[in-house]
């Protein structure tokens, strides 16, 4: 009896809320959302600058300018012809950066998405089924957390004599970046599965899979998004680290490869600041954007983190 009453109360409360928001319309609601979650807005904006640079840039700049030996003499500082200068092999920095940005983003998105899928599945299963399954999965997660992923990746990458591909790198990185998502999702599922609506779904004979996808998933969306951005950051960091060591996909242009080559040619000591300076600006925009967005997503998922003002 008691359960019935509370559910009825909560559904009626939900109804009033949903009609109120439905009236506001999708555009207005989105606007409200972004206004109240400034960190997500700012973060997304910074990331969008980088995305636009990489994907709209090719419409304005000829990417053939990024080929080795395109400009002679090489190693020139920024000028009217080469806005961001040229490297020691005569590549136009601006074109090279535009060429490199999409592939760096792609590695991150692929690895990040894969990492969240693995992590969320592990977290779901551990949190939902509990018992010995939980113990085993939690132990695996704890062990994996203590393994320095970058180092094992280095061993793996150095063993591959045929060189790296973008996809392979993404898969390898994902294998070492799912633990954060697993922990967060497990903790959430643990608390969610005791809620009454889950209890009711279970009592009315719904299958575990159905409950996971239709009862739990919607409530986990903010956490999943935050976890995705988190593993996206980790993935891009790992990719940049590998590439900086010369272990990335060397036959294509990525931001990490640009940094590898500037280190190879001692650009800092030779005072060629435009060579390492411009990729750093992109990295700062990208990482700061993602990071601020992830803090914003965390606060959205868990309002307790938000500062009371």
């Amino acid at each position, binding site marked *: 009896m008691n359960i019935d009453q509370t559910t009825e109360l909560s559904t009626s409360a939900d109804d009033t809320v949903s009609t109120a928001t439905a009236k506001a319309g999708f555009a207005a609601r989105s606007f409200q959302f972004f206004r109240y979650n400034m960190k997500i807005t700012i973060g997304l904006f910074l990331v969008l600058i980088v995305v636009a640079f990489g994907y709209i840039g090719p419409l304005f700049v000829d990417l053939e300018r990024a080929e080795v030996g395109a400009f002679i003499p090489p190693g020139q500082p920024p000028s009217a012809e080469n806005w961001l200068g040229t490297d020691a092999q005569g590549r136009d920095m601006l074109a090279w950066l535009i060429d490199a940005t999409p592939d760096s983003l792609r590695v991150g998105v692929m690895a990040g998405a894969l990492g969240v899928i693995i992590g969320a599945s592990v977290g779901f299963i551990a949190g939902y089924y509990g018992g010995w399954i939980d113990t085993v999965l939690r132990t695996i997660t704890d062990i994996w957390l203590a393994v320095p992923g*970058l180092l094992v990746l280095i061993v793996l990458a150095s063993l591959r004599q045929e060189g790296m591909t973008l996809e392979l790198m993404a898969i390898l990185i994902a294998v070492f970046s799912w633990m954060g998502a697993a922990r967060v999702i497990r903790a959430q599922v643990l608390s969610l599965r005791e809620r009454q609506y889950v209890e009711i779904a279970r009592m009315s004979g719904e299958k575990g899979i159905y409950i996971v996808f239709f009862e739990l998933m919607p409530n986990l969306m903010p956490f999943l998004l935050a976890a995705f951005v988190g593993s996206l950051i980790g993935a891009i960091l790992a990719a940049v680290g590998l590439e900086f060591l010369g272990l990335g996909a060397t036959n294509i242009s990525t931001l990490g490869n640009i940094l590898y080559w500037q280190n190879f040619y001692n650009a800092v000591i030779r005072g060629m600041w435009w060579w390492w300076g411009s990729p750093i600006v992109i990295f700062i925009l990208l990482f700061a954007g993602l990071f601020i967005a992830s803090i914003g997503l965390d606060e959205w998922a868990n309002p307790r983190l938000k500062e009371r003002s």
Partner: protein
Amino acid sequence: MNPAYIVRRLALFVLTVTVVVTLIFLLTRLAPGDPIEAKVLALEAQAGNTGGDIGPIVEAYREKFQLDGPLHTQYLTYLTNLLRGDMGYSMSSYPATVSDMISAALPWTIGIALITTVVAMLFGSLVGALIAWRKSFRLVQATLPVLMVTAAVPFFLFGLVLQFFLGVHWKILPTAFGVDPGFLVGWNLETLWQLTKHAVLPAGAVIVASTGLWGLGMRAMMVTTAGEDYMLMADSKGLKERRIFLTYAVRNVLLPQTTSFALSLASVVGGLLLVEIVFNYPGIGLLLRDAIGRSDYFLIQGITLITTLAIAIALFIMDMIYPLIDPRISYNRS
């Protein structure tokens, strides 16, 4: 301390190390291509010969490095050798052993790691706590966006920036190496000065970046704590501001801070290794880069193993210290 807790942590430690050791063993043995064959072929090409019969040489080396038995006996030899601290010879700098090369590089890395951790932890936590404290200076609170940028960007990018401005442009500090080339290290003040001078930039890069991490973590925890009832209670009792800040807020936050540091330790070490490469600092990171450049597989594996072991030991020690700081940990979930 609860014995069950110690046993569980110890088991986790042993498991972690075993997993990494096994993983590296399997990866290197099952990966396509044979490092010894590749090495011999490369040496042959270097000498100007191609197409010679390298079979016997490869066989001889396999036997020498005990790579000719079935997988499980190989694994056992590998494990027993490891337990004796024998990680084989370096392929690129024979007859130096992998352990010798690593022990020469390790003190540099550990030194930087310790200094940067302590400084960044103290400084970052303080800044983070002050940012969250509403009654602190506006100027301190305004540094939040700066922290967000420094926390997000990989360490070695700061290395590049610092190296350029302080080392190349203004020429205040040396840009590379652990000491000046040709300098003889001894127990004297001159050595200390040399070491300090060369460590400032690499350490600075790590400190700048990890201060952001510590600061943000601290701030987030402080914000949560500020809403707790005991804070309101302390305030209404009329306690001194300083006392509420230090013993009520900061003290409660320090423990979760340590936990989050433990979780990020592996990636912090990874970042540090890349910083060393930027500054040609003679630690593990530089050794690793050279090992990769010369395809010295044994050295690469050795470095990975030692670093993993170091991280696992650090985490284990930290786990042993927790219950002393916070008794709740060992009593819960036993």
